């Protein structure tokens, strides 16, 4: 009986945790929409995620919002973000923003910086075109 009990408790915890993770997994295999996928959608109140690269020169900071363009290879979408962006936020970096699509702009309140797998000492050495277009 003692042996049984010392298995049941961890097994119970593990089964519950696994069940929770499985439920989550089904809704997270597609983590974000690309700008092109977003533009194909109807405007709605549904919360979505949008991922892409911050277009250099497009960032406009205001008191409580930051507006910028997010692009992948050929499409770009205007994002109006309310809140403070993460510290690494800058022009040219990847971001995943969370919010609603109005049809004209993506209004986000949550922003994550998505860095890529390149590591360089000098920023000039980044091959930007290749990795932004391989995403879509």
């Amino acid at each position: 009986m003692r042996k049984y009990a010392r298995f049941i408790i961890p097994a119970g915890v593990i089964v519950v945790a696994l069940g929770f993770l499985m439920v989550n997994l089904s809704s997270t295999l597609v983590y974000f929409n690309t700008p092109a996928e977003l533009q194909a959608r109807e405007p709605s109140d549904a919360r979505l995620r949008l991922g892409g690269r911050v277009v250099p020169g497009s960032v406009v900071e205001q008191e409580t919002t930051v507006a910028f363009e997010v692009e992948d290879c050929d499409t770009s979408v205007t994002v109006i973000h309310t809140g403070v962006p993460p510290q690494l936020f800058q022009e040219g970096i990847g971001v995943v923003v969370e919010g609603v699509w109005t049809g004209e702009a993506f209004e986000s309140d949550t922003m994550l910086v998505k860095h890529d797998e390149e590591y360089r000492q000098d920023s000039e050495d980044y091959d930007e075109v290749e990795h932004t277009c391989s995403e879509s």
Partner: protein
Amino acid sequence: MATLVQKKSPVWPWIVMAIAGLVTFVAAMTVPPDAVQGQLSRIMYVHVPSAWLAYLSFGVTMIASGIYLWKRDLEWDRRAHASAEIGVFFTGLAIALGMIWGKSTWGTWWTWDARLTLTAIMFFVYLGYLALRRTTDDMDARAKRAAVMGILAIVQIPLVHFSVIWWQTLHQPPSIIKPEGPDMDTVMVLTLLTAVASFTVMYIAMMVKRVELARLEDAVLIAEQTNTGPAAGEAVVAPDLSGGA
């Protein structure tokens, strides 16, 4: 049973672990920072080796489990067990370091993307493997059940590793093991490989100690079972230890 207990407990693995840890630290602190991530990129040199050791450990568990089922030698079962415990530790460490790296670069401790979710599942499945081993004190039955799970659970490793390529994730794709070759400056690749090599050496040293512990635990179990005698009812058949080192 005498074969299970080494007269002297080896000390050299502790020294090797310390040196391997030191080499990794020095390498990670002296490499130039990444132009975008800055100093934060240094976390990679301990996060990636931890994740690598998780893969390696579970791979060794699978192979040792297979050899156990083939040879029925409990020494291979002990190796599978030792490696799985080390693997669970490094999976946990990779997740913890990933959270710290994630909070500082992405801006969040955790998010349910495919890579993070699948890694969490892998962690719990191998915890389940360790729990399964506690279901019985019958060494042969325990070894058999664990071996089956140790082999089946390996399917998660390609899932975890390639999740960042197969699905859209927040986590970036692999930097080194990819078809086009590494997307990193040479000095960073070399530093990362140094860290991975040091951690692999650390794994070997840990295995030496953890397998020693597995032998001792089995010896304790045998001693308990022979002392209480057949009245205990369960698992009194002496396991075949002839293959033990």
